[in-house]
């Protein structure tokens, strides 16, 4: 069981209010990702749930019981930190065994649980090593192992992949997703990387300045962003947000067009522009186009699209895939 409810949770550090007031429902077994730019309060929110920070007001309920004032260890949650926070003076075995030892379990039970966690995470050969002798990915797995053995009601991940290199990050992303499938335990995952959010989440919570901007499944957020901020944050490359006469033609303040929802032609179309930079990725081509009367736009074209710097092209947005936002940035439906 791992249902978590936040009721009007707020947090201030002295005079600075980091989280003005958040209501959120996290269901048992869900993979929830908190995403937002740095400084948006996502890590603070996670630490409030963990109990590492005290809430200023509001209530946190875990499985229906009020956990607001509970110490971290009593909440039944396990956390994986950005720096992994392994105990450097202990072997991998002792690191993973530590929470069990603290819980007062007997040696035989600890041994059995540590070894099964180690085999799941491919750490069996490394149990005698110290964290300092491991690679980044292995350390990450030890941190996850230490969380798994406790059989927590929910896992909390605080930007766990940001210290890994790009290819390892993709692998670990898959491993964590697979782990979620097999354990079916609630996971709350904090990241600033919208790709991680899109690929891993059942439910994404987009935060800005301590406020929840929108909650929904990855595709819901992609298809129906509630406002220009979410629209610009979800999706890669970023949605083109256009202001001025072109937006007024569509009777809105800001017009949003995703790079992948633009048809490119060399013959004719709605907008005329000049190619600035063409990024050929093989599978896709990203064009940065300077469009007359609109400004710089990013366009996704097919992989082997032979265009280069200085060429004149025409762009046409796909009619039913444009987004309109009013002067407050809210979506006009």
């Amino acid at each position, binding site marked *: 069981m791992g249902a978590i409810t936040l009721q009007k949770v707020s947090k201030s550090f002295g005079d600075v209010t980091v989280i003005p007031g958040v209501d959120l429902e996290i269901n048992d077994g869900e993979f929830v990702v908190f995403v937002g730019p740095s400084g948006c309060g996502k890590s603070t929110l996670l630490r409030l749930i*963990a109990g*590492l920070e005290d809430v200023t007001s509001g209530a946190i309920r875990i499985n229906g019981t009020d956990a607001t004032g509970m*110490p*971290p*260890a009593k909440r039944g*949650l*396990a*956390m994986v*930190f*950005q*720096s992994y*926070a*392994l*105990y*450097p*003076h202990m072997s991998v075995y002792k690191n993973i065994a*530590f*929470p069990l030892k*603290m*819980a007062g379990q007997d040696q035989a039970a600890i041994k059995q649980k540590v070894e099964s966690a180690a085999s799941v995470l491919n750490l069996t050969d490394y149990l005698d090593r110290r964290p300092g002798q491991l690679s980044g990915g292995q350390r990450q797995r030890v941190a996850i192992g*230490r969380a798994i053995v*406790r059989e927590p009601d929910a896992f909390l991940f605080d930007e766990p992949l940001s210290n890994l290199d790009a290819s390892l990050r993709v692998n670990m992303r898959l491993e964590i997703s697979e782990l979620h499938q097999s354990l079916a335990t609630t996971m709350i995952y904090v990241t600033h990387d919208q790709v991680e959010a899109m690929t891993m989440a059942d439910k994404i919570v987009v935060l800005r300045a301590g406020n929840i901007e929108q909650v929904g499944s990855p595709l819901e957020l992609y298809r129906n962003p509630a406002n220009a901020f979410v629209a610009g944050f979800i999706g890669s490359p970023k949605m083109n947000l256009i202001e001025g006469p072109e937006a007024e033609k569509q009777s809105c303040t800001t017009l949003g067009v995703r790079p992948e929802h633009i048809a490119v032609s060399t013959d004719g179309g709605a907008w005329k522009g000049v190619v600035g930079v063409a990024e050929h990725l093989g599978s896709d081509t990203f064009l940065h186009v300077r469009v007359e009367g609109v400004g710089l736009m990013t366009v996704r074209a097919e992989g082997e699209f032979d265009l280069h710097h200085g060429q004149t092209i025409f762009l046409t947005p796909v009619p039913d895939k444009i987004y309109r936002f009013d002067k407050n940035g809210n979506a006009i439906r």
Partner: protein
Amino acid sequence: MARETTRNRKLVFTVIGWTIGLTLFFPILWTIITSFKTEGEAIASPPSFVFFQWTLENYFEVQTRSDYFKHAMNSVIISLGSTGLGLLVAIPAAWAMAFSPTKHTKNVLMWMLSTKMLPPVGVLVPIFLIFRDFGLLDTRTGLVAVLMLMNLPIIVWMLYTYFKEIPGEILEAARMDGATLGKEIVYILAPMAVPGIASTLLLNIILAWNEAFWTLNLTAADAAPLSAFIASYSSPEGLFWAKLSAASTMAIAPILVMGWFSQKQLVRGLTFGAVK
């Protein structure tokens, strides 16, 4: 070409290093050599380095005139006692300042350090009067207390710097893993801070061992440690260089040996935080 330059630089640095090292060590070497001379040879000019009549008579003389082992024992008790007591007070203090700082923590640290900027002689009279009234003059208890208090700012500062190096997330991880404050200290903090505590301990034993101002002013015969024992050979006895050297050699030998064996720890302790 580049390799040539590197080698030349290495050579220059080696020469400079040895020169400075030997210059610094020379007085100690000279003291040790003089302690094996007769009084006549000790003041002879020009002095001889190796080719003189080596003798141990000064050492026997010093031991019969004043009880070396009694003073050595005083030194051991005073330096270990003041350092141990200091750590007992400083560890919780440094822990609180490193892991649960308030906005005044920096000020408290600066205030503690500022007491070390005051010349000790400034508080000599009040401390002497307190010692007299409480019957602490010429007692080891009194010296342990005063040396502990004098070195406390340094102990707290050193430990504070060490504890600051321990990442807060590790302690938080332990808290998440169900460790109580006591278990967090025993299983996580203490083992990680052991090198820091050890070098603080060593440095403070040395500071307390070599302390002369307070030991000279607050002790006479019973509680006098080795630093006071050396001094007793300088004035009342007149200029007996060889005996004074023998007394000095005997006084510095234990701490020199200890320093030699623990130099790795000491260097780490003194340069901690300077190089990342």
